[in-house]
């Protein structure tokens, strides 16, 4: 074991002493659980079950790094993001976040339990960019008022100072200050996403969640936004949690990658280790399914085609959640015992009874 206790999901829930958080770690998620109740009845509502969207996941993010969180629809990646910002109330678990203030000692805050005032304070440092640049900007507000809103909410500056800041931010994200008085509908998808990024940057956050920020964009525009995210990270030393379903994009942007399946992290490793030496059968299947824009490579690839569909998170399979679709599943083992999330190589964590390095492309 290294000094970090990242994601030892099957171990006893340890009480993390926040003062133990290594200096370079900005965020640690411990045993995060988010369940959505399934209710029945109109007058006497009672809970008859729960959708276990996020089931006990743990990870940490170091300052200045990008952690990519990948998985298919319904795996819980967006719920994870929203729970750790407390846009959704986590069912249980801790989200330790390092709040840095100039000239003062860092304060480690548990976002999952923080009271209203503290939460408001910590949210200055944690921002989010959403997937859909059409839905996440209010069509009735000008670009200036959209970007200035976080400043207004946190009572920063006078009106004219805020407008100056807006103009600066527009330049930073590659738009023109003249755009300030226009409305979102006057912009293309890529430009709207830049506006969303400018809004997230307004309060000088240290940590940003990027929830599928380029999925809705055309390829040539995707590249522009990805380059922008890279530049901003270099410029401001930002830490990213990058959520995406596109494994090629994640390889490009991330330093480390975590793969989710049905509410669990099944594998987590440094980027190249995950792509070049993946160990979990689900990661194998996922990687083998991604097309590569190169006809000669595609002609010689062997795909691992998974059987069936993702099971319902309301009723996840027993044992290993992947066993119903896993080509390697062993009856009497995988359908009964839940695999422990183990560190098999330094920094390479896998939750599988039969992990095996396999090159898939």
């Amino acid at each position: 074991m290294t000094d970090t206790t990242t994601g030892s999901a099957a171990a006893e829930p340890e009480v993390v002493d926040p003062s133990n958080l290594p200096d370079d770690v900005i965020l640690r998620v411990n045993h995060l659980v988010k369940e959505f109740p399934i209710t029945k009845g109109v007058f006497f509502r009672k809970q008859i079950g729960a959708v276990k969207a996020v089931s006990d996941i743990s990870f940490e993010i170091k300052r200045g790094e990008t952690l990519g969180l990948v998985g298919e629809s319904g795996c819980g990646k967006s719920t994870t993001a929203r729970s750790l910002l407390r846009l959704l109330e986590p069912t249980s678990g801790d989200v330790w976040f390092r709040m840095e203030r100039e000239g003062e000692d860092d304060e480690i805050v548990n976002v999952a339990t923080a009271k209203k005032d503290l939460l408001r304070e910590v949210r200055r440092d944690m921002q989010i960019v959403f997937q859909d640049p059409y839905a996440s900007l209010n069509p009735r507000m000008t670009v200036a008022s959209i970007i200035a809103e976080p400043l207004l909410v946190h009572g920063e500056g006078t009106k004219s100072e805020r407008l100056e800041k807006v103009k600066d931010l527009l330049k930073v994200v590659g738009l023109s200050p003249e755009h300030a008085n226009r409305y979102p509908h006057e912009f293309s998808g890529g430009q709207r996403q830049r506006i969303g990024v400018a809004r997230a940057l307004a309060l000088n956050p240290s940590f940003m969640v990027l929830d599928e920020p380029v999925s809705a964009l055309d390829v040539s525009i995707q590249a522009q936004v990805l380059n922008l995210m890279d530049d901003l990270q270099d410029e401001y030393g930002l830490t990213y949690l990058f959520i995406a379903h596109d494994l090629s994009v994640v390889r490009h942007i991330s330093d480390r990658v975590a793969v989710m399946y049905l509410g669990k992290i099944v594998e987590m490793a440094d980027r190249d280790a995950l792509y070049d030496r993946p160990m979990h059968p689900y990661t194998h299947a996922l990687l083998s399914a991604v097309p590569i824009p190169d006809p000669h490579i595609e002609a010689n690839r062997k795909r691992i085609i998974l059987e069936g569909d993702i099971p319902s998170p309301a009723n996840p399979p027993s044992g290993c959640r992947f066993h119903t679709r896993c080509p390697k599943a062993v009856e009497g083992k995988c359908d009964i015992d839940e695999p422990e999330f183990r560190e098999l190589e330094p920094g390479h964590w896998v939750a599988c009874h039969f992990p095996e390095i396999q090159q898939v492309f």
Partner: protein
Amino acid sequence: MSEPLLVVDDLRTYFSTEEGIVRAVDGISFTMEPGQRLGVVGESGSGKSVTALSVMGLIEPPAGEIVTGRILFKGQNLLELDEDQMQEVRGGQIAMIFQDPMTALNPVYTIGDQLMETILLHQDVSRSEAREIAIQAIEDVQIPNASQRMMDYPHQYSGGMRQRIMIAMGLSCNPDLLIADEPTTALDVTTQAQIMDLMLQLAEDRGTAVMLITHDLGVVAGFCDDVHVMYAGGIVESGSIDDIYYNPQHPYTWGLLGSMTRLDDAQRKRLHSVRGAPPSVIDLPKGCRFRPRCDFATEICGEVLPALRDVGNPGQRAACHHAEELDLKSMTAGEETQEPAVSEGASS
């Protein structure tokens, strides 16, 4: 070669809107041979879906109109057919699969009813025979318990299963041409792999020609023989997949390839992005439509719309004034596996 399956000749499909005329497809020509798998690649608004809808006769006046052009399917001009005759062709000889299988299926009828409706409409069979054909079609797309699943409604199927049903429906009348418009865009990547695999296998077994419309150059690389790249209503480059991926002649194709993140790319180099955004198809720039975003544009590009002409490898065509001078291939990032390009300077 026998007669081409499909000839599209100078097709122009325009839509009238409050802001002006949208020239969604503006003068494209191409042919498809029987059994050919053709990729039509482009970003949103490039006109690739409108091309498909035009071939299917699904452009509804007065909003949209095919202004000029001919669409010859097995020698017959589809634009001269009346609605009844078109109905015969559509679904029978040319079938289409849409992006969103949920909206393409009727939620109040069972899967079996909807499959049988298509079969009864196009084939001279009894109800019980149609039922047999439908069950076989469901089995062909590898859905277990076909006869029971006939009685299910669309909502009881997952997204991938629904797309399988759409394929079953499309292929149930053994069409000569299947048009698939972004068939896997709404699906997860592992499901996408299942569906593309299935389509490839079925198309090869039956010799069905497929026009695959997509924005994803990765999917095309594993499925198609040839590719058309569309930009702002026109075809800017066409050729075999090897031509397009290893020897692009148009700066847009080249830029698109450079913009793509690749699963096998271990270096984290900066992406070559195409600057700016596609033009509005209401207010197209004069001359070459790609000029405002092109790194190589000169004076002539702002004056004359370049025609698609032979350039690069034999059979390859591009619509660029400077294709010969540019040598984009040597600037293309990534592995070069193609033999040296045969330079053909002739303009058509």
